[in-house]
């Protein structure tokens, strides 16, 4: 099959070799081990908030102080968690993911794994 992404046979073999390496398996596991649970968590928290806002309007309308309601606080907390997850992931990926990925990419370009 010809396509726009054709590469040499040697390079294709190297991709397979890298994919089957322990280092790559570890990188993939690390990445998925972070992003999958995190995605599940923020989606669950978001839909919990949506369901509360649709079905528990009395609860959301309770005033905590002044005119500040539970709904407003929970809504603002969605902003807080979004910002927090963003910074946490970015820092984690810079520190944990990039060095391992760069190492594998270098190996890939040099053609040797070890």
């Amino acid at each position, binding site marked *: *099959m*010809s*396509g*726009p*992404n054709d*590469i040499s046979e040697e*390079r*294709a073999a190297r*991709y*397979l070799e*890298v*994919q*089957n390496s322990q280092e*790559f398996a570890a*990188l*993939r596991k690390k*990445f*998925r081990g972070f*992003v999958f649970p*995190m*995605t599940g968590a*923020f*989606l669950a928290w*978001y*839909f919990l*908030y*949506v*369901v509360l*806002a*649709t*079905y528990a*309007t009395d609860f*959301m*309308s309770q005033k905590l*102080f*002044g*005119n*500040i*309601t539970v*709904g*407003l606080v929970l*809504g603002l907390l*969605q*902003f807080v968690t*979004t*910002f927090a*997850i*963003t*910074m946490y*992931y*970015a820092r984690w*990926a*810079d520190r944990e993911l*990039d060095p391992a*990925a*760069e190492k*594998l*990419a270098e190996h*890939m*370009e040099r053609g040797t794994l070890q």
Partner: protein
Amino acid sequence: MNAIVIPAATQVGNTTLNIAIFSIFVLVTLGIVIRVSKQNTSAADYYAGGRAFSGRQNGIAITGDYLSAASFLGIAGAIAVNGYDGFLYSIGFLVAWLVALLLVAELLRNTGKFTMADVLSFRLKQRPVRTAAAINTLAVSAFYLLAQMAGAGGLVALLLGITDRTGQSIVIAVVGALMIIYVLIGGMKGTTWVQIIKAGLLIFGAGVMTLWVGAKYGFNLSGLFDDAIKQAGNSNILNPGLQYKNKIDFISLSIALVLGTAGLPHVLMRFYTVPTSKEARRSVVWAIWLIGLFYLFTLVLGYGAQALVGSAAIKAAPGGVNSAAPLLAYKLGGELLLGVISAVAFATILAVVAGLTITASASFAHDIYAQVIKKGAVSPDEEVKVARRTAVVVGILAIIGGIFANGQNIAFLVALAFAVAASANLPTILYSLFWKNFTTRGALFSMYGGLISSLVLIIGSPVVSGTATSMFPSANFQWFGLNNPGIISVPLSFFLGWLGSVTEKEHNAAKYAEMEVRSLTGAGAEKAISH
């Protein structure tokens, strides 16, 4: 988002001043576009700005792309009129970015070249998958484009005092023509700079207004709410439920919002304008902070407009609900601030439309023309030539579509864009990035199934017929009951992707290895161009 209603009468502010400020914006940005586009020669320049933007620049540009006129005027207006429900809406638009950050942006940047289809067809059968991805790209872009152009008519009425249809049509044509010029001269590089400038102006303008409102209330949110309640005569504006009466419908909308963003082709294409996946990550971080900050501003602006202008005055104004932010600007800073905010609103339409046009033209030239029709036997120069011609055609179609859609219920166009993006694009993007056994049949089932089911459900929804606010109020062929198809079409599309894949044996081990290693390590990813 909210429909920009065609207004009936009166006009606030100084039309000449509005036009003057907008003209300055056009001249300045045009100058910058010409300057940065001197080396707009290669395909990577035209489609991806040479991949030379920094994460911060791209993050600001993404913000510019994402905060469309409907989002700027619509959300502020929704909060002003319906209170809490407008705020609720903005949260979905923000949280959606975490999907892009965690699952899509970096892997897409490492794997693809110019378009969404590059990634989806990487390890599957090129032509059928590319065709389907290009059709979905064009469909989403068309709905989004039409919504922006249709909204322009309402804005014109509000900001320039042009209320007759012919006058509005001329302004729509001028906006469209300007946009074509930006795209032709600037390509992705010029368009990105327009987005950056626009995002800066928008956030600065909204920030100034927010501080202004805040200062009036001693930065006491509760005090602002007090006044808003008094003005509205209804304490329910702080509670959910004023705008969204149908609970299932709102959940359906929430699904489309949170999953749609990471499937919008014009957003995805922006990740190719940076040199590495690390910069793609940085882009999303910047975008999330800026978009989040902006939505926090709209919370204050919306309630501020309710407290200081009043929802009755807003609804009665030309432009209806969408006039909340401009009316608040007028109330606070008089003609000058209104002029600035008006110019920002126009710049918003211009910039978003330019981004959509680049995406649509890239998808046609790169995917359909070069890969499907010519089977890859096209020089990059010829491909770019086709892309430029397509941009002109798309621009003309957008003008015509905008003129005809002027005054239409545009809410359904934006909802449709998000619903199609969430159901036709996102499942296939996630499957192809993460699921080893995903096949061509799975991709086609999911993409066409998502597209067709969301279209069919929208046509059968109350948005199109059966109620007084429908697109066709006199006809009644609605059967679906919900305004948004997401709750059905998104799970259906995920299911179809799975079903198609388990009934077919297809595995290109070499391509899969290349894609997976490339996506996670960046080895072999497209490099930036240095001039």
